[in-house]
């Protein structure tokens, strides 16, 4: 039990999927990650669960593109929700929830990375392993683009995901990643340029590699 009277029964990592996905009434004690306060449930908990449920698809997508591993992404999101629950007092408002969760995901992923001491992985191997996910849309064009996204260096992929998927502005990406806005623009420029080449787009009219206007040069990762 946590100091503030919340019971948290935790099953092993692999069994915790969708722990916070269900509506409060669907939980069974000791079956899943189950949170119960001393007065038998309250609005705050239900609200938090609903928030997690609403955000989960985008959080999972973000974690997936960060890790390129759906199983790992699920684990990272679950750990994130657990940490978020414990730190929920620091969440000022629901509208700030998504960036708050994304920051926790990035930290949690970094921790996982440190713990597991990943060796260098072959991108083609990764693509083959995640093939069911990448080809889920049964759309060859989409699968190829996803494979190309897998091949982007993390330094380019992450700001692209934050911009395109999460709707972050350049300044918000810079704040999240601890970079200058110029460096972010450079990475986004290179990300799209590489993607276009990887996807066989006509890149003959693309400008030579270099920073966008007013952006200080960001060295190649």
């Amino acid at each position: 039990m946590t100091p503030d009277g919340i019971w948290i029964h935790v099953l092993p990592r692999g069994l915790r999927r969708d722990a916070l996905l269900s509506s409060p009434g669907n939980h069974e004690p000791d079956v899943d990650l189950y949170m119960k306060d001393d007065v038998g449930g309250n609005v705050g908990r239900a609200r938090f669960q609903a928030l997690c449920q609403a955000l989960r698809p985008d959080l999972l997508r973000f974690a997936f593109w960060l890790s390129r591993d759906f199983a790992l992404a699920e684990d990272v999101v679950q750990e994130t929700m657990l940490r978020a629950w414990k730190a929920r007092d620091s969440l000022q408002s629901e509208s700030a929830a998504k960036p708050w969760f994304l920051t926790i995901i990035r930290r949690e992923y970094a921790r996982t990375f440190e713990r597991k001491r990943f060796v260098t992985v072959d991108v083609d191997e990764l693509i083959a392993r995640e093939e069911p996910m990448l080809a889920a849309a049964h759309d060859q064009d989409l699968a190829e683009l996803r494979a190309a996204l897998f091949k982007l260096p993390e330094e380019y992929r992450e700001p692209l995901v934050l911009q395109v998927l999460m709707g972050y502005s350049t300044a918000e990406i810079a704040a999240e990643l601890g970079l200058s806005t110029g460096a972010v623009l450079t990475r986004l420029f290179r990300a799209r340029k590489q993607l276009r080449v990887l996807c066989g787009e006509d890149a003959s009219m693309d400008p030579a590699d270099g920073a966008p206007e007013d952006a200080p040069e960001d060295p190649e990762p």
Partner: protein
Amino acid sequence: MIDCTQYRRIVLADPHAASPELAEHLAHCGECPAYRERLLRFEGRITRALRVDADVTPLRAQVPPLRRRRNGWLAMAASLVVALLVGTLWLGAPHTSLAADVVAHMAGEPLAWARTDVPVPAADLAPVLAEAHMRLRPDAGMVSYAQSCLFRGHHVPHLVVQTDMGPVTVMVLVHENVAAARMFDEGGYRGTIVPLPDRHGSIAVLVKGDEGDLAQVESVAARVKAAIVWTG
């Protein structure tokens, strides 16, 4: 004025970038408008590619070795419980793809989000609603936008209700029955999908992420739901 190289560097970093300099270049350049159009098409593909189906669980069948080594009967029992739980949730909740489809539809009608105090004339609103065999009582709120939109193979009313906090979009999904209300926060939009009584489908109610909160969405959803009158 910026040149083509400068323009393309900027839009490659952010295809939706907008500034007077960019607009001026675009207006006077013979090649960059077509370049931008191709770039935006590619951007659409990137967006679709990044939006992997977060409900797809293909890897459940490929449990990593670490998990497979767990004690047999315990793992099997736990898997059964989890499967039942997930199955219950799957049946009990609308699929995320419905929310994703609603969000995807929003991208096609950006003008609908204008703040305005001009209501849609009743004569224009009525036929949009009539296609779904319904009408709305006035207490639904001021409807500033009404279109009959093709959504998942059916024409459905796409409405915008103006509130003190800004426009709220309502789609009446008469062909999409859901078991329970579910909130979503995807692709820059936040909202809820609420079942309508007597299996009349559901309504999706949403706001742009930075223009409202879920409490406001829930309030509009309840108001519109109560204001629907079925005519057939």
